[in-house]
């Protein structure tokens, strides 16, 4: 998936090719995962991902989830339109160390802040790193809402995730 990401970044691959690669990767992982587990190999990190409350646009999130899985992360994909409490519950019960929030619309971006604030209120903010992304999201916005990281593409999201979980 690193190579797929590289081709996507330089516009040799596009979303259909990414999703096709993702499908092949997932099918392969079904075979490989038990073998990896038998060796005791640990994932690079455990990430809970979803689009925030009110946002049903999930294609960008799906690309990032595939890239993260291909990059060695265990991905807990909550889907689209995810309420803050669902992010919190999944992060707590699955012992995740990373949360990835996606939004495509300017009007749903505030749900990112609501979610981050909810982690604070639940006393879990220090246990997870939170990264954000999506077309209208900016580094400035990520900083303003207290996210730990921002990425503007699926490929760079993997590098960011690796950096965050090793920080």
């Amino acid at each position, binding site marked *: 998936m690193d190579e797929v990401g590289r081709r996507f970044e330089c516009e040799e*691959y596009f979303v*259909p090719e990414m999703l096709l690669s993702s499908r092949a990767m997932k099918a392969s992982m079904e075979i490989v995962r038990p073998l990896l587990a038998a060796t005791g190999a640990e994932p690079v990190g455990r990430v809970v991902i979803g689009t925030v409350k*009110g946002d*049903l*646009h999930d*294609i960008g999130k799906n690309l990032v989830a595939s890239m993260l899985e291909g990059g060695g992360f265990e991905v807990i994909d909550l889907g689209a339109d995810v309420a803050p409490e669902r992010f919190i519950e999944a992060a707590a019960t699955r012992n995740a160390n990373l949360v990835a929030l996606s939004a495509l619309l300017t009007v749903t971006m505030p749900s990112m802040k609501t979610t981050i604030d909810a982690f604070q209120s639940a006393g879990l903010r220090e246990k997870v790193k939170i990264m954000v992304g999506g077309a209208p999201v900016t580094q400035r916005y990520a900083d303003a809402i207290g996210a730990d990281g921002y990425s503007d593409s699926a490929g760079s999201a993997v590098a960011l995730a690796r950096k965050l979980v090793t920080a």
Partner: protein
Amino acid sequence: MTGKERILAKLRGESTDSLPLMPITMMFAADLAGVRYIDYARDYRVLADAQVAVADRFGLDYVSAISDPAREATDLGAAVEWFDDQPPAIVESRALLAEKSKLVTLRVPDPAAPGRMRDRVEAVRLLAERTGSTRIVEGWVEGPCAMSADLRGVNTLMLDFFDDAPFVEALFDYTVRMEVEFARAQVEAGATLIGVGDAAASLVGPKLYTRFVRPWEQRLIAAIRGFGVPVRLHICGNTKRIVEGMGQTGAEIIDLDFPTPLGHARRAMRETQVLLGNIDPVRALRDGTPASVEAALAECHEQAGAAYICGAGCEVPRGTPHANVEAMTQFARSRS
């Protein structure tokens, strides 16, 4: 010149007293009018009031019936989630065409029948009555890729390109037949331009765009032009690798989102192709200043050349300072 005269003169390649100004306003217009977006999207009278208000306030050369991509899908019975104050969204996990076999059972809906398509037709009719003598009245339809994604689910459609090409062709054929009828009804109600929004097309590369999408965009656009009105093709997202093909669709206006520099588009198209756009709606327009908005638009104009209409890459975002939109107006009025 009136806004209508200005836009039509630009499309004919004639000189204008200033640049035409056609930014997309939806939530921004609803907020300006003090109405909830659910009412804007559901009631043509609310939409028309807000469109006239935003056009009056900022001197826009047109008004538009665009509101959300879910009108046709709603009338076909797709699952749609409504929100009080943001656009409705199609629920992909319950896509209408999750089963491909259902396509053959779908009929082309009648835009005159009660529903959300008729509500848009009525919006066009009211806008034409209220402001059509001096402003362009824009109707709106979904493009073949976007509409197919709405019905099939965008994630699934992207794989259908590889898995089942005949199905994709049949689906695009259906959507174009539907949108031709929707456009016809809007033109008959008084639309003097039709916008075609084909956002999902920016997700594919040049091979799939040329093979699947462009031929159906061409058919749709040719049919609409046959009704005697010009067409604006708007594709959100990064279209750098398909923009040359967009210039071959026959649309009078190619409306580009900010990731595609207008200079790049100009090099891929003839000098007379009118380009519209395309400052970054969030970073440059909403989060910028009047001075930075003017500078960004000057760069767009420089890159596009004379065949240029002033606008943002996509919708003017909710929360954009009025001074920044006024800067767009002042820029447009100061150039020709």
